[in-house]
């Protein structure tokens, strides 16, 4: 059971502290930007540009986002003493293995993007968080205000097109477009022509709820995996269009126990179809990976 006073406290904290952090620093909580941007330095991604790859730190910080519930009290105490971006070392960090894995994923997403958008850049330490958490928790006014700031932020830096790497960021931009008329064109990297993308392996796909039921990408994802040479095992009752259950990720920030229960249930149904699962979202990966062998699409392909 979720404690009611705990929810009230969390709501106030998000409204008063996390939103303030976003307003001041474009980040919901302190994070280690050196870790988050290391992949781009290694890949030699140009800084800035008219077209940018926008990660919103989702792949780099998914383990931290998952433990947001535990993180909130620390965020609150740090905010009270007036620190933020410089204190990443005091917070939960992804492990070295997790950082390495995220780096592989992002380098491949970058390579896919570069094939059809030569010269695509990245904002490195300046990159802002998308604000997805505000929308998901119903802070609509704050979400809209933050969206206006984001649009201005990108325009000042000369950004004319945004390529996103995950469903939550893509959905945030789609919601900004719907709610405030966000005018910068954006696409998810999966929507780009998959030039030279090949891979191998046999998987059951766990569809991200956002990709399959909000952004209508169910067919695109199956076509993409098939064209890349991956063997996909589907079962209409487990992975059919619109049918797939959630990994439990969206509930993680407020109730990690129930979120884990959902992940276990989803992993068991996926296992009944195939021993190894394929995901397209860093939060799906985080939730499911303790219970079933799982890979992200961008780590099993070679662009």
């Amino acid at each position, binding site marked *: 059971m979720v404690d009611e006073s705990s929810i009230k406290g969390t709501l106030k904290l998000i409204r008063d502290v996390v939103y303030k952090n976003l307003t001041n620093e474009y980040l919901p909580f302190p994070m280690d930007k050196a870790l988050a941007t290391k992949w781009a330095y290694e890949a030699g991604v140009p800084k800035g540009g008219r077209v940018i790859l926008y990660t919103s730190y989702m792949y780099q910080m998914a383990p931290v986002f998952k433990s947001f519930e535990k993180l909130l009290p620390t965020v609150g105490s740090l905010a009270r003493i007036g620190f933020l971006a410089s204190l990443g070392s005091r917070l939960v960090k992804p492990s070295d293995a997790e950082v390495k894995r995220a780096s592989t994923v992002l380098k491949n997403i970058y390579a896919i993007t570069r094939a059809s958008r030569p010269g695509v850049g990245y904002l490195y330490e300046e990159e802002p968080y998308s604000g997805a958490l505000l929308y998901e928790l*119903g802070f*609509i006014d704050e979400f809209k205000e933050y969206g206006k700031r984001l649009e201005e932020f990108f325009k000042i830096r000369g950004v004319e097109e945004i390529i996103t790497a995950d469903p939550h960021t893509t959905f945030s931009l789609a919601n900004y477009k719907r709610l405030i008329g966000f005018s910068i064109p954006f696409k998810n990297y999966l929507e780009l022509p998959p030039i030279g993308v090949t891979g191998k392996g046999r998987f059951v796909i766990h569809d991200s709820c956002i990709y399959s*039921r909000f952004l209508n990408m169910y067919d695109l994802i199956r076509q993409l995996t098939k064209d890349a040479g991956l063997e996909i095992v589907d079962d209409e009752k487990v992975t059919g269009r619109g049918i797939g259950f959630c990994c439990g990720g*969206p509930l993680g920030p407020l109730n990690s126990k*129930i979120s884990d*229960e*959902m992940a276990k249930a989803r992993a068991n149904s996926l296992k009944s179809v195939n021993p190894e699962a394929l995901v397209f979202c860093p939060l799906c990966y985080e939730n499911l990976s303790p219970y079933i062998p799982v890979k992200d699409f961008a780590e099993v392909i070679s662009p």
Partner: protein
Amino acid sequence: MNEEEVLAYLKSTSEKCIRCGFCVQTCPSWNSHGKLEYYSPRARVTLTRGMLEGSVSPEDAVESIYSCNTCRRCLVECPTGVDTAELVIYARYYINQKLAGPSK
């Protein structure tokens, strides 16, 4: 949507629910909460309607509304097309105003 439009949206959307319950068994949150009706999509819609009518307090609804994954799985089964995931986002907005205080 402004606040007035949010209230109108919540009212018209929650009134579309015919309480058939086709959504209930498809909800991963309901399944993980011991299959209690309170954690079902149908309950979230009913509680939202109750909050607007004044028969349910935000304190009584908050746990149900915040236990939704907003995964939209229930919409697939709904014969009247109630998008509980979107309704929940705006029900949270309503609750946030009441429990965390008005924005800014």
